[in-house]
């Protein structure tokens, strides 16, 4: 028998699955030696500054470049007219629409890209941009998606006014993009018709922005001599980015290199392909010198990567005990001026149909109507999978609404409706097969940890005390996510399936390099992927180098978004490593002169069953694989590539609880406690997981308590700098308490599910539920986010709870 202490030591040496290995990417970041996009400077590089529209809707009458061209350092001014000869003034979007690269004839949202000034440096480019004279004829703007569909509403997209469809079925109005639905409407309607209890609530997911600390940008460098194009870019999807560039430019994909480098946070903002990237690339192709384009923070918040703007109606039908019989959810989706919404081709409303949540709901129907408005285009998934936050927010809010209606506790209503452990795999009424879950156990653990009964008693006592200066609210969220897009039969972008990949090369000394199709933006892939491979190969993670984001080096993959890195590329890493281990087993059998079946794997070596002194370590095999002493007919080397097409998405879940104390007189909601239990299946690195959860909860806190991109009726942006847009500081941010259960994913090679988005998706409804619960005894069933002190104070004022007694 092997000595347990020795086994443990060998296992620890690997720093594989489950180890809180410190991050290897830190070494450069703590020294200020990261290479972010704006750190890249190439010889002869020009800087591009974009001229943007001051109007949300206007016709362009004339553009005069004269003064700009005369400004010191200015080399060129590009407008739509200049891009027309190369047919790049418009570009196709993933949503089946087209988007203006530079405004052609008219602008459709404030800050829209009208021209790019190229100059010798940043200051000269900005000087030049200020001197481009554009004459506009202002048109009436539409900023409210409900008004967009009104009869006689201004037509935002005259260029496609006569198109019967934009990618997804018939259009009913010039400002209508598509209608998408899922489920059985007749069955859902019948459930409502016969229900003892029904509830309905209008619920807004306001327009927000992921706002990573680094804005978007690129350096495009076209070599006229070789015809090669290199683009350094803040992209979460470098391989798809390269494919799109090839499609747009006509340059062979093999002559385009896209490099992700270090990315200063993404959170969905860096998935789309923005006009700025395209203009900078065209500018480099035209001028033959490198061109850099970097967004300002105002550009970032105004034009690239907004999220949400889903105007929802939730309806539930239940029996008298609150057991749900039917669900009808609809959303009016504001996609802005162009349908450049990020999604898979067949999923125009993303994964919104996960909106049945963690609950066994027999009849369900959901529908999304998407419309154009005079606001920035798109719709990215802000730290979530496509439209999952919107869906989970709706169901988790509606569970509370239903509980209040029938007078049942908000934990109890969930208990009565959970999908039970024995029901898995469970196919929802909207078609997703939840693979695993233990929802009740997770909730029970949280309720016990926080003494839920005690909290409710305290709340009751405070409600009974007219002198209590605060309103106490308890929020619960028992969410199920859907991540890891995804199976190619369901998910593709521009026809390319959303598989992912890993290419592993093992060197003679046992050092390993692995390249993957994903792109870290801070998630710690260089550490966690190495840990997966370390456990699979029995080689120390410290000697496993991970590379991503350089399309010349890494195999094709769909990038990092929607918590897909671990579920898809992490699986590819495990599969590739297993191919290598299978070959290593053959070599070990050859060396030990036994059959393969006579060997067993133990941490870092193959042992002969029943004769454990006979063994070959992986490290030994690595060297021998590069010699002639290998089985006859076998090729040298220990390399493998795996392309992983997941059989299903993964379904991480969690149970969160939040306690807030709201000052009746200021409206400030202070988070007293936030307890987050996550189940992401097999845990790769508990330190990294906890860090991701802290970050996701903080972004949830930001969305729930303060973030919103507001507009006036003319389409003017009313909050597009960090002066107005809420990013919590260390002072506002609550202290987080984390916990976990482990329910491995049955179809993932290592049982992992993805984790970084759960805290955002599950956190937002938890905060909202807590704030609204504080007013529940006053008959309040819903308050829209953000729950800023002013807005909450308005509610206190309207209800008269801020009158001082006596």
């Amino acid at each position, binding site marked *: 028998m092997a000595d347990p202490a020795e086994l443990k030591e060998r296992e620890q040496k690997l720093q594989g699955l489950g180890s809180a290995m*410190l*991050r290897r*990417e*830190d*070494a*450069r*970041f*703590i*020294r*200020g*030696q*990261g290479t*972010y996009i*704006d*750190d890249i*400077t190439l010889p002869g590089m020009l800087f591009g500054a974009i001229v943007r529209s001051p109007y949300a809707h206007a016709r362009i009458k004339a553009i005069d470049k004269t003064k700009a061209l005369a400004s*010191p350092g200015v080399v060129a001014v590009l407008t739509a007219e200049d891009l027309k000869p190369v047919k790049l003034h418009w570009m196709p979007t993933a949503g089946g629409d087209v988007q203006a690269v530079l405004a052609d004839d008219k602008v459709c949202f404030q800050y829209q890209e009208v021209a790019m000034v190229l100059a010798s*440096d*940043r*200051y000269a480019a900005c000087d030049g941009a200020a001197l481009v004279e554009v004459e506009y004829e202002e048109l009436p703007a539409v900023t409210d998606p409900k008004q967009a569909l009104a009869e006689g509403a201004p037509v935002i997209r005259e260029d496609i006014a006569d198109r019967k469809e934009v990618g997804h079925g018939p259009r009913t109005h010039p400002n209508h993009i598509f209608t998408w639905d899922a489920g059985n409407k007749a069955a859902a309607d019948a459930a409502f018709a016969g229900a003892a209890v029904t509830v309905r609530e209008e619920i807004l997911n306001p327009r927000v922005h992921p*706002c*990573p*600390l*680094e*804005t978007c940008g690129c350096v495009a460098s076209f070599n006229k001599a070789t015809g090669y194009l290199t683009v350094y870019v803040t992209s979460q999807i470098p391989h798809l980015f390269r494919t799109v560039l090839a499609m747009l430019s006509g340059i062979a994909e093999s002559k385009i290199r896209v490099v992700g480098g*270090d*990315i*200063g*946070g993404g*959170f969905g903002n860096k998935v789309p392909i923005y006009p700025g990237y395209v203009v900078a690339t065209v500018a480099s192709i035209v001028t033959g010198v490198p061109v850099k384009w970097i967004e*300002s*923070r105002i550009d970032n918040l105004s034009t690239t990567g907004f999220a949400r703007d889903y105007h929802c109606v939730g309806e539930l039908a239940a029996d008298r005990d609150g057991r749900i019989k039917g669900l009808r959810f609809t959303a009016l989706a504001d996609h802005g001026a162009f349908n450049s919404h990020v999604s898979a081709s067949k999923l125009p409303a993303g994964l919104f149909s996960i909106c049945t949540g963690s609950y066994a709901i027999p009849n369900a129907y959901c529908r999304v109507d998407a419309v154009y408005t005079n606001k920035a285009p798109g719709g990215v998934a802000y730290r979530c999978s496509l439209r999952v936050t919107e869906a989970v927010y709706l169901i988790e809010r509606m569970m509370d609404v239903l509980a209040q209606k029938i007078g049942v506790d908000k934990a109890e209503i969930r208990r009565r409706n959970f999908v039970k452990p024995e029901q898995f795999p469970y196919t929802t009424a909207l078609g997703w097969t939840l693979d695993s879950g233990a929802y009740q156990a997770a909730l029970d653990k949280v309720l016990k940890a926080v003494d839920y009964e005690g909290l409710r008693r305290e709340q009751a006592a405070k409600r009974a005390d007219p002198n209590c200066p605060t309103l106490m609210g308890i929020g619960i969220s028992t969410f199920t996510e859907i991540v890891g897009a995804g199976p190619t039969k369901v998910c593709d972008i521009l026809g390319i399936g959303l598989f992912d990949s890993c290419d592993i090369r093992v060197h003679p000394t046992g050092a390993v390099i692995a390249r993957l199709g994903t792109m870290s*933006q*801070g*998630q*710690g892939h260089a550490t966690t992927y190495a840990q997966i491979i370390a456990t699979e190969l029995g080689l120390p993670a410290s000697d496993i180098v991970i590379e991503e984001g350089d399309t010349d080096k890494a195999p094709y993959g769909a990038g990092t978004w929607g918590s897909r890195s671990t579920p898809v590329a992490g699986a590819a890493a495990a599969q590739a490593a297993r191919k290598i281990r299978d070959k290593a087993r053959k070599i070990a059998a050859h060396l030990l002169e036994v059959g393969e079946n006579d060997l067993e794997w133990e941490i870092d070596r193959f042992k002969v069953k029943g004769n454990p002194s006979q063994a070959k370590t992986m490290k030994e095999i690595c060297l021998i694989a590069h010699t002639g002493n290998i089985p006859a007919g076998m090729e040298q080397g220990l390399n493998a590539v795996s392309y992983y097409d997941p059989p299903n998405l993964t379904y991480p879940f969690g149970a969160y609880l939040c306690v807030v104390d709201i000052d009746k007189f200021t409206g400030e909601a202070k988070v007293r406690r936030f307890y987050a239990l996550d189940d992401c299946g097999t845990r790769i690195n508990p*330190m*990294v997981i*906890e*860090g*991701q959860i*802290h*970050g996701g*909860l*903080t*972004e949830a806190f930001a969305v729930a308590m303060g973030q919103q991109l507001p507009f006036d009726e003319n389409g003017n942006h009313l909050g597009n*700098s*960090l*002066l107005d847009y809420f*990013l919590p*500081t*260390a*002072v506002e*941010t609550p*202290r*987080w308490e984390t916990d976990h259960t482990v329910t491995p994913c049955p179809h993932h090679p290592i049982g992992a599910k993805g984790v970084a988005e759960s805290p955002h998706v599950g956190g937002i409804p938890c905060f909202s539920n807590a704030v609204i619960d504080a007013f529940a005894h006053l008959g309040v069933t819903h308050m829209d986010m953000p729950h800023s002190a002013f807005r909450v104070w308005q509610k206190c004022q309207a209800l008269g709870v801020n009158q001082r007694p006596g």
Partner: protein
Amino acid sequence: MAKTHPVSFKLNGKPVAVEVEARELLIYTLREKLAHTGPHIGCETSHCGACTVDCNGMSVKSCTVLTVQCEGAEVLTVEGLERGGVLHALQQAFHEEHGLQCGYCTPGMLMRAYRLLQENPSPSEQEIRYGMSGNLCRCTGYQNIVKAVQAAARKLTAAPAAA
């Protein structure tokens, strides 16, 4: 060409001299003329703190300091924290406490924490949270940053020479 001004100052202990327009901001001089790309640009409005450097013993946001204001100044950036191949206690603590993810805010966070610990060698959690509130992080939720500053403070007060 616009009129330029000679400016000399000390950067991480070494004398440097640049010619800049009056309007040039310190962050651009550091990043584009002096090849110090540790300090980052996140907002250009003094809100995010990614550009934080130490100037004459004060934390400043170099996106809103004119380079011409720095004549004769002592400027310290993240590149100057490591001494003789030894990481500063704060750098080590950020690593060990997982106080960073994408790394973009980190140089500013480190420089602010550096000055905070000079001002208050043993800050409470609340003092750290308040003292670091001019530096935004979108990734970590601050909890581990606070832990890192606490850990570094303990280490530095135990062996002050390392500061």
